[in-house]
């Protein structure tokens, strides 16, 4: 009831947000030290040639004009050209996005798969050794920066134990990527029945996904623990015990279902963190995703990809939070959409 209206209203609300993001992204690229025209023209260009390139790129125009041109192009789906790859940014993005998505989803899966049970167990066995161990693990996960966790994992699992492949990309050299269906190598190779590729894809995915996953597992586990403790104290859980329902059903059916409602909210935040954390982890593992692309572009002062990355991350935030809101309506009957 009124669901379409709710969706429309929510979508309309995202317009000003995204508009603001284009302004920020644009200014960010503008304020980068260095002259993109100089980079494009090359180190040996004459000042006259550089001025010519500036004119071509529209950099001699006043700032608002530059912005409006950028916005106009954006509305036509033109994200500009990357001066380092020489290709449209959109094409570069499309090519790299699946790698990032695969990494992000795997990390999210690890974070939820470990974080939720850890939080539940910590809450049930409050103040026991298990709870304390979970806390230490969580604090360590948050305290260690991703690049450090990544390097540590590479050192242990690749260098010392030789369990993981070299941290270079998504597949072992010499293997053909599977036929693209979803763009996720793990899924595609499984669909194609290409077992060597699947094996290699999983091996390559394991360390970067663990690196990202460990970082976001902590907030998930802490949040689940906190909300779980609260719901375990609630009247309806007490009533469920009092009605003689078995512990498993009380803990997972009554308590966890209610405890997970607030947790869904932080999944939106976690997802944003993952998108941002990607840039670092992708660089460490030479993962050919959009984060890596953005970092490389930053080094070469390539404005187009940077603006697009900012815009894209913001777009993902908006989409994920919309999804979270919709999900809320499904799992919490008290929230009526519309």
């Amino acid at each position: 009831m009124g669901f379409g209206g709710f969706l429309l209203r929510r979508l309309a609300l995202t317009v000003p947000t995204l508009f603001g993001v284009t302004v920020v992204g644009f200014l960010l690229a503008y304020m980068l030290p260095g002259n993109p025209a100089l980079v494009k023209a090359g180190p040996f260009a004459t000042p006259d040639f550089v001025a010519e390139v500036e004119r071509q790129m529209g950099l001699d125009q006043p700032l608002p004009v530059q912005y409006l041109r950028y916005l106009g192009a954006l509305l036509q789906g033109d994200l500009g050209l990357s001066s380092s790859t020489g290709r449209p940014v959109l094409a570069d993005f499309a090519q790299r996005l699946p790698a990032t998505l695969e990494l992000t989803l795997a990390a999210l899966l690890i974070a939820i798969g470990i974080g939720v049970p850890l939080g539940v167990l910590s809450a049930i066995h409050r103040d026991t050794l298990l709870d304390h161990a979970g806390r230490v693990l969580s604090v360590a996960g948050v305290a260690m920066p991703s690049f450090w966790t990544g390097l540590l994992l590479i050192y242990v699992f690749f260098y010392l134990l030789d369990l993981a492949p070299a941290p270079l990309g998504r597949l072992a050299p010499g293997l053909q990527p599977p036929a693209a269906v979803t763009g996720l190598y793990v899924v595609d190779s499984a669909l194609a029945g290409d077992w060597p590729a699947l094996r290699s894809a999983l091996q390559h995915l394991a360390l970067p996904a663990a690196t990202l996953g460990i970082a976001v597992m902590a907030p998930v586990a802490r949040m689940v623990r906190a909300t779980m403790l609260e719901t375990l104290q609630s009247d309806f859980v007490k009533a469920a015990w009092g009605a003689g329902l078995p512990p498993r059903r009380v803990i997972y059916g009554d308590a966890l279902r209610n405890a997970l409602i607030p947790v869904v909210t932080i999944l939106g935040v976690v997802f944003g963190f993952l998108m941002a954390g990607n840039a670092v982890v992708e660089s460490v593992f030479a993962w050919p995703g959009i984060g890596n692309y953005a970092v490389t572009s930053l080094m070469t002062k390539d404005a187009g990809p940077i603006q697009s990355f900012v815009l894209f991350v913001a777009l993902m935030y908006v989409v994920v939070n919309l999804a979270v809101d919709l999900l809320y309506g499904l799992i919490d009957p008290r929230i009526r959409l519309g």
Partner: protein
Amino acid sequence: MTAPLLEIEDLAVRFDTEDGPVEAVDGLGLRLAPGEILGLVGESGSGKSVTAYAVLGLVRPPGRVLRGSIRFEGRDLLALPEAELRRVRGAGIGMVWQSPRTALNPVLTVGHQIARLLRHHRGLPPRAARERAVEMLRLVGIPEPERRARQYAHQLSGGMCQRVMIAMALATQPRLLLADEPTTGLDVLVAARIMELLKDLGRRTGAAILLITHDLGTVAESCDRVAVMHAGQLVETAPVRTLFRDPVHPYTRALVAAIPRVDREVALEPIPGAVPSLLHAPPGCRYAARCALATGRCRQERPALLPIAPDHQVACFAAEPVA
């Protein structure tokens, strides 16, 4: 006299707080015959609800049952293993909780919450359980039970939530119903109807009811017998008529005097002081500090609960026949 359905003897429940141990229930004894309605009365903090929790085996740390026995249908619940106890909870003893809205799970439909008890305790198949749940809702006087069964607690009024709680507590046909302040937060008319319903259903299903309340008016209308608690101890127990006509313990007398009456124009007597802190409970009678009749002996020695008439027991030195 028939064998009691519920027999509590010398029950003591202690809470280990940061400031020291608190005996929330101290040496309580109660008997409840099948089909009987017993009112457990006292001010807030007198240990009424804790008693109910103890019967259900739900006293959790920092609380623990120190000593005593709670025999239900001849079995000591305190000695039962947890798995056995779970079969008694819900199936043998139903509980109507104090705040019906928060005692219902917000993300499950009320029909489902009743049905799952029937499935678990009575082994009903899903469909039959659902139908029986709707029937229970009809029984407790909820209009359009089919539609209501599919709704959630937040979609129901307070009175309706309480009816759902009662339906849930009675669905498995327990022999004993614990009702903890079942009418708190409901307006007078709704409260009266809920009490009427409880009494009626109790009579029809043959379930005994332990009615926990601070409202003597409710007790007068609904109960067969009354037990008065003060600061974790039982001070007087008597049939309801006797207690109202002839209260003996000074605390009971004060409680009865505090009932507003329209037929007599008497100034209401407030009871001086509050329920004493049980942190450093004095050795003597716990009412001594508030009692006009207290003597030195009351502050030193604890009066035992002694019969002064058949079925009428009082714990007060002043009530004891002079030896």
